[in-house]
């Protein structure tokens, strides 16, 4: 019997597609051109003009110093950066040479094979010795450096000065005091949340876990094991989730809040206190509480201590596929140099990653003092594992908090389940 044509066609298709899905040959390029065009991707910020001005002056100086070199800067939207970066990794021909990226993405991008190892160049860079230890940690994966820190962001406690004065309250100095102050505000002013919190606000909840000595995960020989179900971490989870209730922030509304929702509520004058970042300053200033608020570091477990904050921020790295290795690394260093970071602080309010530059900034602008204090007191970072991006995108921690808040599970059961999911992610991603 003869084979019908369609069967042949389908068979040909199968053969043409070979036996495995496509992969890109994103191997490190051996080329190191000393002239030509460098492509740079930076994030498009809300109100990007001041940032662009600083970058333009850096680029002009760079082009002058390296004759025959052109720098092509593109500002990419933050919302769609994940797709853009994936596409860049898949197609080296259209990828940039230098790229800005969020510091929680470092390990994931390294795992994907997209970032260039610049350990040697970073060590030889004179400015590197003043880099903040947490900022350095945020570009380091398994002992190797994959970029230079661009700026850091930390969160602290915003509070309403007018409400505190009216009720005769003082800014809390311990975590327990924070909770009781929040309840006092809510009791006296039922239309306000005491401290506005969010069940999906992971980075706002982390200080509560860290304040009691808990950890998200512990590293051992380069691989991570979840510690979210340890006794200390459970205590922190309990402290955070107990803030959800009619006496502070009703679960029916607050369980679904993310970070932006809490800042919006505070800016609109609906909360006595909120946990916000230095990057939230502009949003709060634009709200109805302008001139009626102040910021202090988030208090820790004991009086006078500061709860360890999550050190967010962005880095600038070089892509593995670059054909201008030397130039690209030099441009990365110029874009994250002390001078650039100082200018960037003046332009955008981005906190510098160098301690000396940051202290100068704090002297100039009193607003950043509590954030600089928070950084000086010691900050923490998420596990430097590709598993973290998986944990983050599959909402493991928000689910855990929401299960406790809505009364579906006890702290123990919810944290044990989260720990199991985290370990699975660390195990599969390494």
């Amino acid at each position, binding site marked *: 019997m003869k084979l019908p*044509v369609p069967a042949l066609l389908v068979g040909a298709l199968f053969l043409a597609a070979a036996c495995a*899905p496509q992969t890109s040959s*994103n191997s490190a390029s051996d080329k190191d051109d000393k002239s030509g065009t460098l492509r740079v991707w930076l994030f498009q910020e809300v109100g990007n003009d001041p940032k662009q001005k600083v970058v333009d002056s850096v680029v002009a100086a760079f082009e002058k110093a390296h004759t025959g070199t052109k720098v092509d800067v593109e500002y990419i939207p933050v919302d769609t950066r994940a797709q853009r970066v994936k596409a860049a990794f898949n197609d080296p021909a259209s990828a940039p040479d230098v790229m800005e990226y969020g510091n929680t993405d470092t390990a994931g991008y390294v*795992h*994907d*094979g997209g970032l260039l190892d610049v350990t040697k160049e970073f060590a030889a860079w004179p400015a590197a010795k003043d880099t903040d230890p947490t900022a350095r940690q945020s570009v380091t994966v398994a002992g190797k450096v994959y970029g230079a820190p661009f700026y850091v962001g930390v969160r602290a406690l915003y509070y309403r000065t007018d409400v505190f004065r009216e009720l005769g309250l003082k800014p809390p100095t311990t975590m327990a005091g924070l909770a009781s102050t929040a309840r006092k505000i809510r009791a006296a002013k039922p239309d306000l949340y005491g401290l506005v919190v969010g069940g999906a606000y992971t980075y706002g909840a982390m200080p509560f876990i860290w304040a009691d000595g808990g950890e998200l995960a512990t590293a051992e020989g380069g691989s991570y094991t979840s510690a979210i179900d340890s006794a200390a971490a459970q205590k922190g989870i309990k402290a955070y989730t107990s803030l959800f209730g009619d006496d502070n922030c009703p679960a*029916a509304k607050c*369980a679904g809040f*993310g970070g932006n929702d809490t800042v919006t509520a505070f800016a609109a004058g609906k909360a006595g206190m909120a946990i916000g970042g230095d990057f939230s300053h502009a949003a709060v200033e634009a709200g109805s509480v302008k001139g009626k608020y102040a910021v202090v570091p988030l208090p820790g477990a004991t009086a006078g201590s500061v709860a360890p904050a999550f050190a967010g921020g962005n880095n600038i790295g070089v892509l593995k596929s670059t054909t201008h290795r030397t130039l690209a690394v030099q441009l990365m260093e110029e874009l994250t140099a002390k001078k650039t970071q100082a200018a960037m602080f003046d332009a955008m309010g981005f906190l510098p990653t160098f301690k000396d530059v940051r202290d100068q900034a704090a002297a100039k602008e009193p607003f950043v003092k509590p954030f600089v204090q928070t950084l000086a007191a010691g900050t923490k970072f998420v596990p430097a594992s590709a598993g973290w991006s998986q944990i983050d995108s*599959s909402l493991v921690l928000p689910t855990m908090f929401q299960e406790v808040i809505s009364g579906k599970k006890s702290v123990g059961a919810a944290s044990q389940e989260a720990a199991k999911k985290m370990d699975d992610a660390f195990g599969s991603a390494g």
Partner: protein
Amino acid sequence: MTPTGVGAAVRGRVRVRGGLSRSSPRPYGGAGWGPWLYLAPALVVLGGLLVYPIYQLGLISVFRYTQAQVSGGEPTAFVGLGNYSDVFSDDQFWSVLLATVGFAAACVVSTLAVGCALAVLLTRVRALPRLALMLAALGAWATPAVTGSTVWLFLFDPDFGPVNRLLGLGDHSWTYGRYSAFFLVLLEVVWCSFPFVMVTVYAGIRAVPAEVLEAAALDGASQWRIWRSVLAPMLRPILMVVTIQSVIWDFKIFTQIYVMTGGGGIAGQNLVLNVYAYQQAFASSQYGLGAAIGVVTLLVLLAVTLVYLRLLRRQGEEL
């Protein structure tokens, strides 16, 4: 519409033609290629648009295929049914699948009920109200899902929403409880998908000969009776199409859940299969796992459709 049926019909025709041109020197076997040649353009397009993507989906689902493999950071590894066993061993997958089936069923039933009722209404009202109803329905139909979801969410907002003020519910949160959140999404889904049912069924009713309806009315049948015994049987092919369409749409729902419940509700209580697949697989670039969930979705939908067609056929309807 099975492939063998087509083949038999084609062979039949070929034989007839072969009989007529007996004097032609062309050998008999050559004639067998003729029909395929004519079908080839359509087959190539169908193969390219349908078979090849499904083939790729199946292929990816048996590999460990994440962003690291796509961009060449790690070699691609064959894992056999590993991705499928990951999916099936996850308790959450089964509860999400159950919720998806229940939610889709509720959406399909509500959409069909609202769509058919309004289609009948359309045939009973004057031109002006009919035009208004048509325009309103088309407006709902044309609204992008993200916009529609956001507007519905705002209508039911605990602090600023007009619905709570109208019903005097204070600051009741509609998205906190599992069923109330599903109910809210159901309302939006019905609102944006009933127009398709309504317009299609309305067109069907218009095509029913007026004498049949008149005869039924003369025989003293009530409105409900006319619908059940005259219209519905005559509209069966159309109802079948809209039902299958609705089943497929509502089973694959993503935007409404993603937007209205903030990516799956409190602690994931409002997850449906598509959002679950997005969260577990695509957001963290585990394309192999995502493809496995895709294949499972495809098989479930195929099974539902086949069972439905089978049921219809048993009732003696020609397709």
